[in-house]
């Protein structure tokens, strides 16, 4: 018995030695080990699983392992990342949106020296102090989806200016609303609040043609004063939202419901991102009569037709990564020929890489059939803006929905915001 135990002990020691030396060898190799990759996007998750992303990456880096962490949705993603930041437990590779980049800037590595960043058409626009902290996965355009046959029946032309857009909504509401009290000319799922972002978030930038609007606001004491771009935008939005074109109960429906109603042609116009095309198709719509145009914000045809584009899902490597070289190699691989073109073909969004151009879906390409388009790259929010926004609890998406509540006074709300904005700037010491 004692002999058997001795033999077992020797074997155990040998095993420990072999594994220990093996692990120290892999610990020395920067291209081996496990990295975590946290995502929220259902489409990306499905594509990763169907196409064996880990296996394909291991063909190039055989000693590497990737743990994909799928988080329920982007709201939950930011909550989780925030908690993990304070615990020093961020994943090796994470995504950001333009509006969250400032929040996590101290926890992201500079990717300026990567080939992926060099080939990305939008990355430089989101650089912080000259450092590229996130490489956009796709270029996101905002569209207004509409049903051509419904426009034709109601005698409505595709609008080219803001007044024409307002008029088109009103004509559609009057025409179809007369037969169907449930009809909605302009479908925005305001119960969820966020679906008003094409208006509340992007319209100020579209009016002045500056993607950096939020950061410009951070340097002003009264950004909501009479005549400013943001006030002009919100006054126009208020007028549109309260004109009855959002249907009988605009605050009672969320984005999923509006998407389904649009697919069933109970909604005529649906402003949303390119990603919504997939949802409209999934809702069972026959898209032969589906068309798109860019939200016209200009007041007359003499002005240029401004169109917003934003880098979506900015991939970055965190400072908490203990395998930063491997994580960077993964980012390079992700945006290489081995993976990116197939992913791009799978989603309806546009390419963010100059070396992999993508033809738009015919429905979305319709919007580009004009020669007066001026692209405005959306800059997101910087440090100062975020600090003031948090201090005054400025929630522009909620504000859009509040416009439809009883007793809402836009002028008073904007004046109050001005006062609190100036106080917050002075308290935070922002010049």
């Amino acid at each position, binding site marked *: 018995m004692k002999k058997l135990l001795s033999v077992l002990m020797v074997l155990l020691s040998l095993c420990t030695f072999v594994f220990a030396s093996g692990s120290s060898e892999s610990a020395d190799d920067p291209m081996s080990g496990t990295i975590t990759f946290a995502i929220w996007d259902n489409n990306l998750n499905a594509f990763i699983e169907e196409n064996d992303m880990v296996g394909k990456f291991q063909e190039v880096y055989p000693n590497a392992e990737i743990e994909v962490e799928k988080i329920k949705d982007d709201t939950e993603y930011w909550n989780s990342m925030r908690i993990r930041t304070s615990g020093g437990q961020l994943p090796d590779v994470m995504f950001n949106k333009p509006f969250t980049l400032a929040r996590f800037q101290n926890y992201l590595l500079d990717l300026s020296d990567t080939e992926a960043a060099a080939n990305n058409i939008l990355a430089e626009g989101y650089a912080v102090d000259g450092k590229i902290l996130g490489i956009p996965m796709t270029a996101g355009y905002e569209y207004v989806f509409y049903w051509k046959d419904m426009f034709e029946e109601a005698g409505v032309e595709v609008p080219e200016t803001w007044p024409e857009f307002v008029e088109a909504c009103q004509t559609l509401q009057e025409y179809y609303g007369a037969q169907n009290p*449930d009809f909605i000319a302009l479908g925005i799922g305001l119960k969820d609040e966020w679906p008003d972002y094409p208006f509340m978030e992007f319209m100020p930038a579209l009016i002045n043609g500056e993607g950096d609007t939020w950061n410009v606001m951070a340097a002003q004491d009264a950004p909501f004063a009479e005549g400013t771009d943001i006030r002009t935008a919100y006054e126009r939005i208020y007028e549109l939202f309260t004109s009855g074109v959002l249907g009988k109960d605009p*605050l009672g429906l969320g984005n999923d419901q509006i998407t389904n109603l649009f697919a069933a042609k109970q909604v005529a116009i649906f402003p949303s991102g390119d990603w919504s095309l997939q949802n409209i198709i999934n809702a069972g719509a026959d898209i032969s009569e589906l068309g798109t145009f860019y939200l016209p914000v200009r007041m007359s045809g003499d002005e240029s037709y401004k169109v917003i584009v934003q880098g979506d899902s900015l991939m970055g490597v965190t400072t908490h990564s203990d395998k930063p070289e491997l994580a960077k190699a993964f980012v390079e691989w992700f945006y290489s020929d081995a993976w990116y073109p197939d992913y791009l073909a799978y989603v309806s969004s546009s390419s963010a890489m100059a070396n992999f151009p993508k033809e738009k879906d015919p429905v979305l390409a319709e919007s580009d059939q004009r020669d007066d388009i001026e692209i405005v790259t959306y800059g997101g929010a910087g440090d100062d803006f975020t600090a003031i926004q948090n201090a005054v609890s400025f929630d522009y998406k909620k504000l859009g929905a509040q416009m439809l509540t009883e007793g809402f006074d836009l002028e008073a709300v904007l004046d109050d915001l001005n006062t609190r904005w100036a106080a917050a700037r002075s308290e935070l010491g922002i010049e």
Partner: protein
Amino acid sequence: MGSIARQRQIFIFTALFIPVILLVCFVVFPGVDLFRISATNWDGLAADYDYIGLDNYVRMFNDENLWQSLKNNMVYFFVHLLMIPVELAFAVVLNSRLRGAKFYKTMVFMPYIINGVAISYAFSYFFSPINGAFDAILETLGLESLQRHWLSDPSIVNFVLAFVSVWRFSGYHVILFLAALQSMPQDILEAAQIDGAGTLQLFRYIQIPSIMLMVDFVLFDNIRGALQVFDIPFVITNGGPGYASSTFTLYTINAAFKFSNFGLAATMAVAIMFLIVFIYIIQNFLIHRVVLKEGRK
């Protein structure tokens, strides 16, 4: 000390050591730390922060949207409170020799075990203003005049959400009452019946006092649940329109995660802790001293 007594002490110590350590690490320490964070301006991310004294408490008391949210919590509290006698009555009925009692018990308990988010999502479609099932039911019954904007009318939205909450949680209370009733010794009931007590007298003087501990627990659970309600308003209305259906917890989570103010959120968490204890003491006093007219024990 005898060896049995020593063994007993060793057993008690080892049995309690791990739970107490866990409790201290994961409940007591975070609870105490909450007070410390409530005195800071920590944004939830930065490594450093400043101590700002009672500023967060002042800001919290001056925040009218937070008061609105707390008012909304009270709707859940009172609606559930009104339902407790009904739940108790249900439990008594189910405890009697009712035909198909097992089936009813299952049906009553079912909503509690279904995922809360799924329930909320289903109800947001049920109360939808277009193609909504509830409006369709009213229409079928010829009651179109009763149709409302169930989820967007600030005057009724909290009652609609409280109804969903009642639908979900009442079964849980019924089962708790039922368990308490079933654990009652039958001989007391039989003795009372022989003495000529009627059903109502049995209920008031025998059953209620016997299950008072459970009633107390349900009353406390009601306060805790009503003040911490989150998933139902979050999924169904997102606290809207405006802050019309926001709740204290929803507002706290937004302060922490939407506006990066963990210091203020911690202040709100401290406040809710005290509020729960405060309301419990008042409720206990009202029910035991005023309603049941119990003396000091």
